[in-house]
């Protein structure tokens, strides 16, 4: 009823400052979220649990690993470091998320950033002063325990350092589900490969 009184008002306010637009967008976002949050989360969890997803991930991972191995072989290196493989696995995982989640986008973006940084000069890393953990600081930082833990969680989930609490929890949920799928797929893959490998190892002199 009230809204009917202000249709024109809204239109006049529509071309208002970006603040209001952002606020309205946020409000509409949260409105949608409250309506569908549980459904969304359950859906996202379910999508990481299906076998099909796992298979897709495994096949993609195998291909990526092959490419990595080829590249390293061409470069002269033979041993592909575990880190490379882990990064590859993470990237493939993020790719299978289809960019719907923040952490997946951050994972895919870090690679670009890393490749860019390689070309740049390495900055001095000694500029960071180690903070002396005084008692006062400890007391100060101990007060919002939940907030501290949320910050730690934000650091763990890639690309979620400055994210609001409910979004952080959403991202963490999706990230945990994705990680579980990744672990499962990699384990089965490792087993399969290990099963196949020793045969060749045995044949080697």
């Amino acid at each position, binding site marked *: *009823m*009230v*809204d009917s*009184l*202000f249709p024109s*008002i809204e239109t006049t*306010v529509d071309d208002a400052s970006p*603040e209001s637009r952002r606020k309205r967008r946020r*409000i*509409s976002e*949260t*409105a949608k979220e409250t*309506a569908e949050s*549980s459904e969304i989360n*359950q859906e996202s*969890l379910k999508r990481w649990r299906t*076998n099909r997803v*796992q*298979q897709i991930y*495994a*096949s993609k991972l195998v291909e990526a*690993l*092959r490419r990595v191995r080829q590249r390293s072989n061409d470069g002269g290196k033979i*041993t*592909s470091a575990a*880190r*490379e493989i*882990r990064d590859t696995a*993470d990237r493939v995982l993020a790719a299978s998320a289809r960019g719907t989640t923040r952490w997946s986008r951050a994972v895919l973006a870090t690679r670009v950033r890393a490749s860019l940084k390689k070309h740049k000069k390495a900055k001095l890393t000694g500029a960071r002063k180690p903070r002396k953990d005084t008692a006062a600081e400890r007391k100060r930082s101990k007060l919002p*325990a*939940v907030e501290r*833990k*949320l910050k730690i*969680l934000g650091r*763990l*989930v890639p690309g979620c350092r400055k994210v609001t*609490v*409910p979004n952080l*929890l*959403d991202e963490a*949920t999706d990230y*945990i589900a994705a*990680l*579980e799928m990744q*672990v*499962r797929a*990699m384990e*089965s*893959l*490792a*087993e*399969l*490969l*290990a*099963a*196949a*490998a*020793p045969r*060749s190892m*045995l044949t080697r002199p």
Partner: protein
Amino acid sequence: MDNELFMNTELPPPSEMAMHFEQPSSSSAMLNWGLMDPNLARNSPPQDCFMWEKSTEQQQSIFDSALSSLVSSPTPSNSNFSGGGGDGFIIRELIGKLGNIGNTSGDIYGAPMNGNVSRSASCYATPMSSPPPMMNRTAPLTEFSGDPGFAERAAKFSCFGSRSFNGRTNSGIPVNNGKIVNSGKLTRVSSTPALKALASPEFASAARPMIPAGDSPPKLPGEFSRKRKSVSKGKSKDNPLPAASPSPSFSKTAERKEVSEEKGGKRRREDEGEEEEGNKGGNDTKPPEPPKDYIHVRARRGQATDSHSLAERVRREKIGERMKLLQDLVPGCNKVTGKALMLDEIINYVQSLQRQVEFLSMKLSSVNDTRLEFNVDALVSKDAMISSSGSRVHESGLQLESLSHHNYNNNSQLNTNVSSNNMMLHSPMKSLEPSALARGFTHLPTLTQFTDTISQYQMFSEEDLQSIVGMGVAHNPNHESQSQNMKIEL
């Protein structure tokens, strides 16, 4: 505060009013000046005059009755005003004069446009010349004479009066006082086109005569609007005005104009939405209805209906929902209650999962060195079969899993990893998909490396140790045959 306003300006207005009334000739000049006043100009004076004329007949009876009541009962009106006694006197004087004028002839109402406008303009003009409080005095006459939607406004402003004017509960005078304030401020406040635009659709339903007075409520003087805003804020979630929608719209518009138009409007609209929801079914459980833009939340029974607490409650519930989902996801979180402990568990779980991934990537790297190319299709198909096949014996799965760790080259580095991962692997095995892992381990590699690395698994659980010892002790060919058997089974 508003009492003071009324108190301060006792003397001058009457004299001015008398002056103005005695000099209708000057009214024409005043009329022009009043017309040139931006508000009036924007209001399109002919419109005003039309409205005034239109409503005069309606108002006359009301006006007369009000006048008679006022004139006849000076003391009650006096008592109505806690601090506005002087005001009452002045008003009565003015009204008395007006009453004479009005009673003598409907001429005043039937008077030509100019006359009406002039009178009102004169009254408006005086405020322009005099300090703001004086406008309060002069306005009532104009309000009386040219008050188009008098009845409607009376109803509405009586509600206003009960809210914002503490001592004035009487409908007659408070309405006038409200009008006094509002219309008095009409001239002073500068109305922007946006406000006009805002005002017009709002008050379209309330009839066009409302517009001149409609502008005034939004353009309340600082203190009144502030007061109204504070009052409304304090009571926004309680039962606000039981009046019709225009009055909440009035207050809301007042607030909106005072604050920034965009932000304030949004907030007020949200409040309004919540208010109305609260009004309609304040005791219902909260269904978060998804409106177009705003979250409409119902206050639950026995809970605070303040806008802040409502928003906080929504926020807390959102976070709680997500924590519950995480609780289902993270194993072992069911017993834990409280956000901090659960967050601890979640952090630990995420860290362990990441460590597992790193561990497995190391494993894969070692495998990568040997063979990867020709096995891809076979592996993929096997993986598919593994995932879809039936469940395996848990014990054998455990054994196989422990055996699988033998394949690592850099065992020392993996000591801690293995132990920790084994712990974690067991739990995901139990909780997630033990069958898949067990199936994955059916393809046993050759067990030549078992005995080398058996010492690593001292941190395993009892059953693991037994299985490992069992496996380690057993002959290789036995295991090979076993593995071959398992392969055949697959």
